[in-house]
């Protein structure tokens, strides 16, 4: 088990914040760069993506879907714990659809497994579990 400094915890929390900002800003490459080179993403529907090229491609597809640019990810403060390989961050997220009247969309529980690669904390595995699903106007969450 590794130990985490205050700087580690702050940096890991910012990985989650960058996730939201990059995804909501259509920055597919920057978003994929939050993962390790062999990083894996598992969506709530069970879809697996591995590696920067696949992750960035999916992010671009999501951004270009109808309604894909109207979404904002609101992330709660994460619980960050040391793990054998680095750290695990768990947090709640809610999608807000900003098209027209602002409405809350999918509420989810998110888990990211992280390790240091190339001098910074990156996600090597992450998964999402939807807790509720309200409405259908929020599209294509990964």
């Amino acid at each position, binding site marked *: 088990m590794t130990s985490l400094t205050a700087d580690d915890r*702050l940096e890991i929390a910012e990985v989650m*914040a960058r996730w939201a900002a990059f995804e909501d*800003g259509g920055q597919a490459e920057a978003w994929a760069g939050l993962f390790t080179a062999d990083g894996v993403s598992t969506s709530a529907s069970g879809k697996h993506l591995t590696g920067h090229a696949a992750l960035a491609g999916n992010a671009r597809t999501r951004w270009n879907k109808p309604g894909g640019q109207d979404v*904002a990810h609101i992330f709660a403060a994460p619980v960050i714990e040391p793990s054998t390989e680095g750290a695990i961050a768990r947090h709640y997220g809610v999608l807000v659809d900003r098209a027209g009247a602002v*409405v*809350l969309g999918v509420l989810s529980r998110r888990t990211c497994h992280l390790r240091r690669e190339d001098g910074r904390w990156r996600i090597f595995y992450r998964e999402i579990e939807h807790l509720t699903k309200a409405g259908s106007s929020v599209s294509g969450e990964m």
Partner: protein
Amino acid sequence: MTQNATLIRAASLSAEDRLDIQQLLSEYSFHEDTGAAEEWAALFTRNGTFQGGGDKAPITGRAALAEFARRRWEEKPEVRSRAHWVCNIIIEPTETGAHVSSYQMNVDKIEAGYVVSGVSGKSDEVCREDGRWRFEKRTVVPVGSR
């Protein structure tokens, strides 16, 4: 010490700095949502600027900022039942302090319950003045913008 070393030191932030800056953003919401105009204005540097969204004119200096906050509270009753939820905070060191980006989700209490009335981004230049971190410039931006 070399010039490069000086720049590197100027462009680094301690964990305490980062926590202080996070608290600055939290204080902003509390003061804004309670109508504490003077306290809200004091979160800016003496010559600090607030730039609202769209083509709104910038507001500079604590007296003008406090007046803006008072008028907002008096003239817009809906803001008295609003809470600003701040999240997704990213802090990056600069040579004079830090650049901060964040989200704000507005939750309003209405007769029927609660509604999300808006989501915006904030882009901030912050620096230390008179012993604490303050906003040098705070700009309302679309979410996902730097």
